[in-house]
């Protein structure tokens, strides 16, 4: 397998109506598989959230990470994703989440650390165009002088790499600390009282509406790598909806690491 570059591929954009947390988990699973099998061109998918969620990493302990009573009280669904990494607290309109589904050839020969930075170089450029000096903080964070902006995770499946990232646009820190246990522990360690001190969201840094930040990101990706508008195929959606209702909604999956 030869190493490929961004421009060796015909990149497709999926940016659609808000979808449920479990459907997002399932779409990542299905679209990674489709790119790996060669049935889908390499794709950038921008997520829109239909409901609040806590998304825990593949290997995180459900009990250790999430206050189930608090999540239920706030009407927040807890889902587990296919990739490792840490918990994300999601409210519609408060985050910008995207996935890159690429052939493994795009990151061939790169260390993990290099692969994370390589797949997000376009985002750092988009942020620079918005006046934010941001950089990669290994292993998997995008950060700035003001604080952390985003966290990334990768997983490799049958010829494809899934690279997905959640960026903080705005944040309800008190609700987040209510729901995420790890947040409380980390904060108590560091002696700080506000999660907002660790995460500096894009809203305060840019002063722009969320949609404008997304439009800038898409424009930057398109200029650097090329990008054609696409949509989830009917057969892909059928597969994803089935997985969302079976695997990703099942207690066996969500509590797989209890």
């Amino acid at each position, binding site marked *: 397998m030869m190493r490929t570059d961004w421009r060796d591929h015909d990149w497709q954009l999926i940016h659609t109506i808000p979808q449920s947390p479990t459907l997002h988990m399932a779409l990542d699973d299905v679209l990674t598989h489709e790119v790996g099998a060669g049935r889908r061109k390499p794709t950038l998918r921008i997520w829109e959230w239909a409901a609040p969620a806590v998304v825990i*990493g*593949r*290997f*995180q*302990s459900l009990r*250790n990470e999430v206050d189930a009573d608090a999540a239920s009280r706030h009407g927040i669904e807890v889902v587990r994703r*296919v*990739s*490792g*990494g*840490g*918990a994300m607290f999601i409210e519609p309109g408060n985050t910008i989440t995207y996935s890159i589904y690429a052939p493994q050839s795009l990151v061939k020969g790169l260390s*993990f650390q290099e692969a994370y930075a390589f797949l997000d170089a376009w985002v750092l450029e988009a942020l620079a165009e918005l006046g934010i000096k941001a950089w990669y903080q*290994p*292993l*998997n964070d995008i950060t700035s002088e003001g604080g952390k902006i985003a966290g990334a*995770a*990768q*997983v*490799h499946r049958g010829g494809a790499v899934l690279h997905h990232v959640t960026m903080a646009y705005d944040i309800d820190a008190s609700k987040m600390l209510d729901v995420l246990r790890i947040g409380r522990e980390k904060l108590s360690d560091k002696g700080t009282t506000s999660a907002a001190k660790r995460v500096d969201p894009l809203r305060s840094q840019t002063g722009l509406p969320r949609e404008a930040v997304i439009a800038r990101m898409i424009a930057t990706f398109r200029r650097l790598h090329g990008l054609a508008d696409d949509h989830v195929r009917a057969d892909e959606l059928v597969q994803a909806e089935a997985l969302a209702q079976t695997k990703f909604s099942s207690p066996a999956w969500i509590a797989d*690491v*209890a």
Partner: protein
Amino acid sequence: MHGEYKMPGGKLVVIDLEVRDGRLADVHLSGDFFLEPDSALHTINATLEGQPEQATETELTNAVRDAMPPDVMMYGLSPEAIAVAVRRALHREAEA
């Protein structure tokens, strides 16, 4: 019993376990690390299960490393970090 270790430049590695008849039991590894394929999590838990309570950090490290198929990928995680978390769970040491 519960032990945590954040390896330098790595992620949080958490071990929950019991000790029965001098051996590790109900061992559960968790954390915000990256591990592929994900089935390796169960291999690691199964490898630690039944290890002597007195096993050294080196012995635990070697046991985990020897049990890993060659295609396993760890990022922010290592056999050494897992062994440290196990020893901390057993000693109930304060987390780093």
